[in-house]
């Protein structure tokens, strides 16, 4: 007993001092240096490249991307894709998340797992399934025929309907999960209290449920919008070149036509959109009271 104590004291003293001096740097630096070299610098180079072409400094890429109606239309397509996917997901996701949060405990775990599972399935696999679904002899046409909505199979693949149907399918869980995680913590007694104080169901929803679940809604919206605005695989497979987005232009600029200046400018525009979404959503995710104090 005493020998062990003596030994540890003798050893621990100098060792501790040594590590207290050097450990923080040893622990932090490898990660940070790696991320600066492999991530921050490449992104900065990309930004610099967008201002440069074969002849040196140039804003030609931006003049093209932000001045040519064709490319403005493409930026608008991307924003529209993000917007419609987000709205569609919200309209389905909010009520679904509400039902999920009110489910009995054991069922809730199962339902939660079922919503979560599709997120872990590869996007390519899901989009492949969607494409098969929407073939002329696919299940969707079969369903519509048998219900009697249509009398002959419709062409669904490569239409905007297919695009949005697929996009919402792929990104819906990203809307449901954040809303659910906030709704789960919502005390049901609050709505009961509002009702007992004379508020109608609509008022209760508008004045109690909706404001309290707003952080989840904001998180879901920013997540779905920022991912769907930049989506590449799903639009590529479901609608292809009929609906050009910024992602398609960027990929083509680098992989096919080798117009790096155009690609880099488009990439920076997308980067700005992505960063704007993040900052806007962190602003709105803060409780309104705190926001007011700050501003």
């Amino acid at each position: 007993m005493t020998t062990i104590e003596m030994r540890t004291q003798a050893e621990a003293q100098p060792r501790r001092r040594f590590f207290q001096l050097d450990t923080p740097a040893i622990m932090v630096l490898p990660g940070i240096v790696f991320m600066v070299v492999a991530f921050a610098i490449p992104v900065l180079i990309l930004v610099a490249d967008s201002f440069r072409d074969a002849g040196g400094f140039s804003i030609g890429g931006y003049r093209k991307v932000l001045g040519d109606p064709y490319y403005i239309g493409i930026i608008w397509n991307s924003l529209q894709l993000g917007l419609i996917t987000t709205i569609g997901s919200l309209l389905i996701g909010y009520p679904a998340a509400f039902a999920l949060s009110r489910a009995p405990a054991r069922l809730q775990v199962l339902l939660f797992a079922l919503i979560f599972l599709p997120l872990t399935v590869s996007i390519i696999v899901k989009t492949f399934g969607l494409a098969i679904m929407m073939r002329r002899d696919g299940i969707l046409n079969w369903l519509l025929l048998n219900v009697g909505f249509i009398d002959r199979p419709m062409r669904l693949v490569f239409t905007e309907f297919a695009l949005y149907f697929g996009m919402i399918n792929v990104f819906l869980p990203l809307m449901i999960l954040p809303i659910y995680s906030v709704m789960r913590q919502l005390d049901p007694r609050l709505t009961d209290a509002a009702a007992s104080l004379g508020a109608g169901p609509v008022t209760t929803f508008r004045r109690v449920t909706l404001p309290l679940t707003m952080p989840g809604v904001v998180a879901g919206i920013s997540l779905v919008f920022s991912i769907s605005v930049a989506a590449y695989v799903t639009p590529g497979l479901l609608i292809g070149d009929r609906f050009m987005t910024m992602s398609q232009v960027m990929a083509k600029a680098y992989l096919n036509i080798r117009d790096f200046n155009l690609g880099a400018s488009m990439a920076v525009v997308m980067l700005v959109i992505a960063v704007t979404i993040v900052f806007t959503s962190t602003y709105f995710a803060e409780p309104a009271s705190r926001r007011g104090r700050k501003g």
Partner: protein
Amino acid sequence: MIPRLSFALCWVMLSLALLFLFTPIVIVVAVSFTESAVFSFPPQGFSLKWYYSIRNADGLLASAWLSAQVAFISTLISLVLGTLCAIAVVRRMVPGGDVIATFMASPLMIPGLVLGIAFLQAARLVGLNDAYTTLLVAHVVLTMPFIMRTVLASLSMFDFSMVDAARMLGCSYPRALWRVLVPNILPGVMSGALFAFIASFDNYPISIFLVDVHTKTLPIQLLNQLEMSPDPTVAATSALLILATVLALIVCDRLVGLKRMTTI
């Protein structure tokens, strides 16, 4: 009346959402068992021939192996670099911890294609021609945010006085971290590592700029195959992928509990 009705409506919505989410997945699995080479509904016949044809399909197995390697190694590197960094941040050993944490997690905010282009340009600039190395470096950046977020969350619930206690009892600092800290935060870290692995394994937008003819990851190969010769071999591969994901989730659920895994 209105609350009851709207509540019922919410349930209808949830059921429809689940049906909607699972239909494509179920269809892929169903198609993988058909006999015919076209994907019609309802599927005709039953056969496993498309599963056998995976072996003969050009490069599917090789690309799956490459994807697994890249995902495993990059997740491992992120785990080591990210965990060390997160410990220092949580213990306030370095100034500007919040900035460091945000920086390390920021690749998640940037669209995949933008990252892919940035990596491509940078690799060209320094003359890095080896697709394998480039993929690996890019995927470490891709997986880092997942590791950072889960490790930071797990560490914030860990009581560091236990490490101090171990050191007082004679453990060296690295040894105390290994024997006391690691077992405690392992469940959270494992779930982060699983997500990181999946994110890397499934990644298309970053990898597409970095692959070459001989080094193709599975998502690239799958999409190629889909565009060139879509036959149920792709469906069979997809079905196996779905099976692997479900198994991984079940194992993780047993180890950590799905609930805890996703709230972090």
